């Protein structure tokens, strides 16, 4: 038996453990890999499933494009139809960021707190099932990761945290480094600007002991939604990021797509789309919004902002009779549209305070 033969004995046997020496010896090369994976997250996913892929998971071409865009740019706005796997991809991005940026604190927010937690919980569970390696990255011990009804928190073994925060005043003062605005058509623009975005004021402190304000992760915002109405906060934000894409090409990107891609990839049934088109109760405008990613509604130069109008519809102190709370010159204008033959009568009461 030659010496070389003995050295090569059981060369097909996997290493059982990783000693500190072996791990430390790999660090110089691994640092290059980390930098590379931060730009090519799809290849990181390929690496994760290369040894253990029970569900035969693989990314579609368009998903690779989305993942790279979301990882490379600070501001990403994606308008996609149903079944485009947009929430799935956005959650995957957050998990990959948590892995590749130790100590990152990322969040998911949505119109309702319960909605964000349920989406995040469902997507993390699905991803851990499809990519078993991701399950190993999360610290599942009690007191670390928690999965509640309104709140979910995933703590990673490198100290990164992914959770959901409510788009409410109560979230004021919290600290995160980046986040996902899931179904942002339903998020109150005022709360987002005054409460949610300021949570990202502080940059991540890297494990080397310092901060890098230019790091893509810091203040990163991913907006994901189906199309909604023009003259809303979500649409204005889309236009804002489009403008940034032009003037700050290395920082912002917008993406969009229609039902054709998920149908092509087999994620959506074509007959379902055909049935929807034929369905008399599903109007054309709804179809355009939900499946064509077309923003509908009022024209851009409309006199009223529909969202602002709706916001002011709720009176904090309604008057059910003359209150006397105003000046002596105040007066009321009452307009009545009388309904006949069973129709509703509508009265508009305007209070004028000169």
């Amino acid at each position, binding site marked *: *038996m030659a*010496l070389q033969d*003995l*050295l*090569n*004995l*059981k*060369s097909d*046997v*996997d*290493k*059982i*453990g*990783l*000693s500190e*020496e*072996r*791990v*430390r*010896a*790999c*660090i110089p090369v*691994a*640092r*290059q890999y*980390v*930098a590379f994976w*931060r*730009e*090519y997250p*799809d290849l990181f996913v390929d690496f994760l499933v290369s040894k253990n892929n029970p569900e035969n998971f693989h990314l579609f*071409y368009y998903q690779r494009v989305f993942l*790279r*865009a979301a990882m*490379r740019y600070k501001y990403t706005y994606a308008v996609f139809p149903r079944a485009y796997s947009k929430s799935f991809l956005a959650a995957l991005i957050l998990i990959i960021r948590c*892995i*590749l940026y*130790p*100590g990152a604190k990322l969040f998911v927010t949505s119109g309702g707190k319960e909605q964000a937690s349920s989406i995040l919980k469902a997507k993390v569970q699905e991803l851990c099932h499809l990519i078993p*390696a991701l399950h*190993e*990255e999360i610290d599942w011990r009690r007191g670390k990761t928690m999965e509640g009804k309104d709140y979910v928190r995933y703590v*990673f*073994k*490198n*100290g*990164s945290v992914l959770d959901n925060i409510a788009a409410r005043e109560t979230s004021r003062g919290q600290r995160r480094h980046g986040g996902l605005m899931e179904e942002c058509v339903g998020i109150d623009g005022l709360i987002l600007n005054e409460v949610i975005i300021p949570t990202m004021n502080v940059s991540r402190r*890297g*494990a*080397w002991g*310092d901060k*890098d304000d230019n790091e*893509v992760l810091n203040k990163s915002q991913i907006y994901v939604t189906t199309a909604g109405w023009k003259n809303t906060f979500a649409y204005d934000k889309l236009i804002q990021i*489009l403008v940034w*894409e*032009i003037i700050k*090409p290395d920082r912002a*990107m*917008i*993406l969009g797509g229609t039902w054709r891609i998920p149908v092509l990839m087999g994620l959506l049934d074509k007959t379902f789309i055909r049935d929807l088109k034929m369905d008399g109760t599903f109007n054309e405008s709804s179809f355009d919004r939900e499946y064509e990613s077309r923003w509908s509604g009022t024209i851009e130069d409309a006199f009223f902002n529909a969202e602002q109008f709706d916001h002011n519809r709720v009176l904090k102190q309604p008057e059910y009779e003359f209150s006397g709370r105003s000046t002596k010159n105040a007066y009321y204008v009452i307009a009545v549209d009388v309904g006949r033959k069973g129709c509703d009568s509508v009265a508009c009461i305007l209070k004028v305070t000169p």
Partner: protein
Amino acid sequence: MMAAFDIVTPAHEDYLKLICKTSLKCHQLVDLGDIEGFQKMSKVYDTLMKSAKFTAAQNKAESGEYVSAIDEFILMCEREGFIPRYYVDEPKDKPDETLADLRNYTHRLVTEEMNLGNLIESAARTMAREEAKEEDEETTEIEDLDLHELEEEVLTDNDFLSHYEFVEDEKDEDEAMIRELLGEEDE
């Protein structure tokens, strides 16, 4: 052995060579039937394996204890210092090309088309003007047609005369027919 254990330092490699040589010696001694020599050599072999921490028990004990996940390993990598961004100077594959193409298209569309807003507005105005023009033309055509038809249909005195004559004839014919019918009934 290289695959099953952590062979990292030169000391590890040296230990491994000694172990391999000892193992070969053990085989030779067994083949020669020198059991006493084999027992001594196998003790040396075991001692070397333990000293080098190449035993299965130690390997098992160490498995997954130092680093159990990639994120922990990345944390170690970052502790070594700031990791500079991987510079993607040009598209390296098809998704990169797609991404670059999308960006360039949007950028070119908005920046190279000067006064894009004015262009859209002017296009909208032109369309509105064309539509108004088409409506005007249609109206003019209808008006022209009506006048022409009117010119053709202007009634003259002869027309009125012939009409009254026609009415009178009709009246006479009706009366004649009634008379005939009544006469038949009388009869």
